[in-house]
C-alpha cells in the first residue's frame, strides 16, 4: 500500500483499493424515512468501516471501507462470527444488549493488522459496528516497547514493569547478564553475524524464561531478566547456572562456530532493595563482580559490593592524577644467572606512592588502570623511565618491563617502544618485555604480529607468570620467546607438594630443549634456591637473591658486584 499508517485512527486511507462492493443485504431500518437512499449511499461511502448486525447476530450490511479492511466479501446473512472466521480474523466481539449497550474488542486481521471494534446497540436490537485500524498505533507502541533487533522488550519497558511490581510491593529477582567475548566476535566476524548472534542469545534466554518473566535487551550485549515472584537463592541459582550453560554453548552461524560466555549478576527485592534504580545498580554491581572474578559465572549482590565499588572509584580518581603528580616510581629487582652467579638484569616494578594512601599495592591499582584505560599512559611512562634508568647502569645488562595485555590493543605499541629506545639511547637487546599469557588470549594473531614487530627491533620478549594461564605450549610454538618466567606459586609450592616440583622441572626441561631461558620467580629461601637449581632452571629472581630496590641501590649493586656474590656465597649458592 506504500503508506506507513501514520494517520490518526479515525481516518481510513483513501488510496486503499476497494476489493469488493458493499452489500446491502437487507433494507436498512432507515429506508422508510425521508431520503433513505441518500442515507444509505452515505453509509456505503463512509470512510469509516461499518457493519450492521441484526438481533440474531447476522450481518445485514457491510460498507465499502469495511469490506476493504476485512479483505473479503460476506455471504448473505452470514453470522458475524462466521464472517470473521472466513476472513481469517482472530478474536470475536460479543454483541451489545440492554445491559451492555456498547461493547469493545480488538481483532487481529489475517494480515496481522490490529482493529478496534466498537459495537453499539440499535433500537431494533441489532448492532452497528465500527472498525478502526489501529495497527499503526499498536506497532508504534510495540516499537517503543521493544528492541527491534531481538524483539525483546527494551530498557524503558523493563523499568516500567519493574517500577509497577515494586510499587505494588511484589517480590522479584533481577538478573543482569552480559556476554563475554562478544566484542571480538563483532570485530572478527562483522556486525551482521554479531546481530544474528544477539538474536540467538535472545532466543536461548527465551527458553529459560518462564511465564511472567520479562526478558529485556538494554543495548549492546546487555540483557536483563526480571522474574516476578518469591524465589529462594537455590532456585535462582539453578536458573542462573542454566543461563550460563545455555548461552555458553557453541553457536553454529553462517558457517562459523562461535563461542561466547555469559556472566550474570543477581539481585532480589525486597531483600536487596525496593527501588528501581537501586535494584538495577545492584544487579550491575553483582555482574561486574562476576566478570571480575572470571568469566562465565554468576554472582548474587552483596551490600559490600557497593562499598568496594566506591573504593574503586576513589582509587580511579586518585590514579587519574598520579602521573601528573609524579607519584609513580620504579623499583628494580635483580635477576641472577645461576651458572655465573651474576646479576644479568633487573625487572622494573611499578610503585605508586600516594600522598595520603601511602604505598598502594599494584594488585589494587593495576586492575583499575586497566579498566579505565589509564594503563596506556602509565605503561608508557614505565617503559620510558626504565629505558632511561638502564642507560645509566655501569653494566650493559637487561631491564625487564611488564606490558599489560591492554597495551597490545594499541597498534602503535611498536612505535612507542622504538621511541623509548631512541630517546633514551638504550640498545634494543637490553630491553626485555614481559608479557603474560592473557595478552595472547584474545586476538592472538594480532598480538603475535605485534610481538614479531618488537622482536624485529631487536627487543627481547619473555613470558611472565608461566604456568598460570591456558595453553602456553601452543604459544611457545607460535612465537620464539627468549625466556619463561615460572610463576612464583610453583616455587612456593615446591616444598609441600611434589606436583609443583614436577611442574618446575618440566618447564625447565622444556626451556632447555627449546633453548629458552627459564627464570624461577619468588625464591625466598635457600632451600627453594637449591630446589630450583636442582630442577634445572637457568635464572632466579626473588627476595633471596635480592629484593626490589631503588635505582640508586641497583646501581650500587652493579658497581660492587661482590655484594651479590657475597650474599650468595653466604648462603652457599
Amino acid at each position, binding site marked *: 500500500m506504500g503508506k506507513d499508517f501514520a494517520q490518526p485512527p479515525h481516518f481510513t486511507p483513501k488510496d486503499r483499493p476497494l476489493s469488493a462492493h458493499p452489500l446491502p443485504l437487507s433494507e436498512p431500518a432507515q429506508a422508510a424515512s425521508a431520503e433513505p437512499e441518500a442515507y444509505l449511499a452515505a453509509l456505503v461511502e463512509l470512510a469509516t468501516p461499518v457493519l450492521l448486525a441484526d438481533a440474531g447476530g447476522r450481518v445485514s450490511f457491510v460498507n465499502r471501507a469495511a469490506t476493504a479492511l476485512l479483505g473479503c466479501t460476506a455471504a448473505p446473512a452470514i453470522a458475524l462470527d462466521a464472517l470473521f472466521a472466513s476472513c481469517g480474523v482472530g478474536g470475536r466481539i460479543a454483541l451489545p444488549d440492554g445491559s451492555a449497550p456498547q461493547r469493545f474488542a480488538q481483532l487481529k486481521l489475517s494480515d496481522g493488522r490490529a482493529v478496534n471494534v466498537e459495537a453499539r446497540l440499535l433500537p431494533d436490537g441489532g448492532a452497528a459496528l465500527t472498525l478502526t485500524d489501529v495497527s499503526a498505533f499498536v506497532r508504534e507502541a510495540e516499537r517503543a516497547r521493544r528492541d527491534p533487533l531481538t524483539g525483546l522488550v527494551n530498557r524503558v519497558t523493563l523499568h516500567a514493569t519493574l517500577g509497577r511490581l515494586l510499587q505494588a510491593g511484589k517480590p522479584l529477582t533481577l538478573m543482569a547478564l552480559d556476554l563475554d567475548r562478544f566484542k571480538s566476535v563483532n570485530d572478527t566476524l562483522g556486525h551482521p553475524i554479531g546481530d544474528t548472534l544477539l538474536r540467538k542469545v535472545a532466543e*536461548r534466554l527465551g527458553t529459560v524464561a518462564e511465564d511472567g518473566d520479562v526478558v529485556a535487551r538494554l543495548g549492546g550485549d546487555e540483557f536483563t531478566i526480571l522474574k516476578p515472584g518469591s524465589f529462594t537463592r537455590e532456585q535462582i541459582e539453578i536458573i542462573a547456572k542454566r543461563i550460563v550453560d545455555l548461552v555458553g*554453548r557453541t553457536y*553454529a552461524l553462517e558457517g562459523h*562456530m562461535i563461542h561466547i560466555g555469559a556472566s550474570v549478576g543477581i539481585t532480589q527485592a525486597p531483600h536487596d532493595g525496593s527501588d528501581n534504580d537501586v535494584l538495577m545498580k545492584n544487579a550491575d554491581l553483582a555482574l561486574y563482580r562476576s566478570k571480575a572474578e572470571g568469566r562465565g559465572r554468576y554472582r548474587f549482590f552483596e551490600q559490600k559490593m557497593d562499598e568496594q565499588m566506591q573504593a574503586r572509584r576513589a582509587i580511579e580518581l586518585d590514579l587519574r592524577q598520579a602521573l601528573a603528580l609524579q607519584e609513580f616510581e620504579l623499583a628494580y629487582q635483580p635477576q641472577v644467572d645461576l651458572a655465573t652467579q651474576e646479576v644479568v638484569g633487573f625487572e622494573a616494578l611499578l610503585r605508586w606512592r600516594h600522598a595520603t594512601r601511602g604505598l598502594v599495592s599494584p594488585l589494587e591499582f593495576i586492575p583499575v588502570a586497566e579498566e579505565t584505560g589509564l594503563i596506556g599512559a602509565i605503561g608508557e611512562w614505565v617503559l620510558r623511565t626504565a629505558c632511561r634508568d638502564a642507560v645509566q647502569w655501569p653494566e650493559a645488562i637487561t631491564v625487564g618491563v611488564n606490558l599489560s595485555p591492554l597495551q597490545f590493543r594499541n597498534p602503535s605499541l611498536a612505535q612507542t617502544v622504538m621511541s623509548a629506545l631512541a630517546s633514551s639511547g638504550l640498545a634494543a637487546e637490553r630491553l626485555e618485555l614481559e608479557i603474560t599469557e592473557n595478552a595472547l588470549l584474545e586476538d592472538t594473531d594480532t598480538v603475535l604480529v605485534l610481538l614479531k614487530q618488537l622482536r624485529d627491533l631487536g627487543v627481547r620478549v619473555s613470558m611472565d607468570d608461566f604456568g598460570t594461564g591456558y595453553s602456553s605450549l601452543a604459544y611457545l610454538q607460535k612465537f620464539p620467546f627468549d625466556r619463561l618466567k615460572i610463576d612464583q606459586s610453583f616455587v612456593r609450592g615446591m616444598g609441600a607438594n611434589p606436583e609443583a616440583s614436577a611442574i618446575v622441572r618440566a618447564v625447565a626441561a622444556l626451556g632447555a630443549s627449546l633453548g629458552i631461558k627459564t627464570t624461577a620467580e619468588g625464591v625466598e629461601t635457600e632451600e627453594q634456591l637449591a630446589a630450583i637449581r636442582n630442577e634445572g632452571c637457568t635464572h632466579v629472581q626473588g627476595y633471596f637473591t635480592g629484593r626490589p630496590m631503588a635505582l640508586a641501590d641497583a646501581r650500587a649493586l652493579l658497581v660492587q658486584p661482590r655484594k651479590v656474590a657475597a650474599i650468595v656465597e653466604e648462603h652457599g649458592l
Partner: protein
Amino acid sequence: MSAAAPFQRLVYYSRNEVDGDADALDAAIDEILSLSQRNNAQADVTGALLFNTGCFGQVLEGPRRAVEATFERIQRDPRHSDVTLLAFETTDARAFPNWSMAYVGAKPAQAVRYNEIAASSGFDPSRMTANRLLETLHGLAMEKEA
C-alpha cells in the same frame, strides 16, 4: 551460494544428562529419534546418532541453514551438555543420504548387546576425531542396514 560443497556437515559429541535408569534413557532416545526423524526429513537433514558410555555422538548433514537451525535446537536441549564440536565443514556428498537420523548401537536397556557394540566399535566419542566418529557411525549404520 557457491557451486562447490553444497552440504554442511556437523559432528559433535556430548554428555548425557538424562536422569534415571536404562528404561528412562531408552524412552528419551526413542523420543529424540522420532522427533529427529520427523523434523530432519522435513528440513532435508540427514545423519546418525549414537549413544554410549554416557555420551551422545551425532552427525548432522544437509543444507547449511537447516543444519544450523537443527543444531541450535539440539544445543538448547537440557538432555545433554558439554557439546563438543568435532567438525563443522562443507562437503560435496552426504555420508548418510538415506537416514533422516540413523540410530546406531543398541538401546541402553539391552545392556549386554549394547556393551558388545560398544566393545566392537570401540566407541568412546570423547577420544575420537571427527573422521573416526563419522566412519564409525557410518560403518555401524551400514551394518545395521545389511
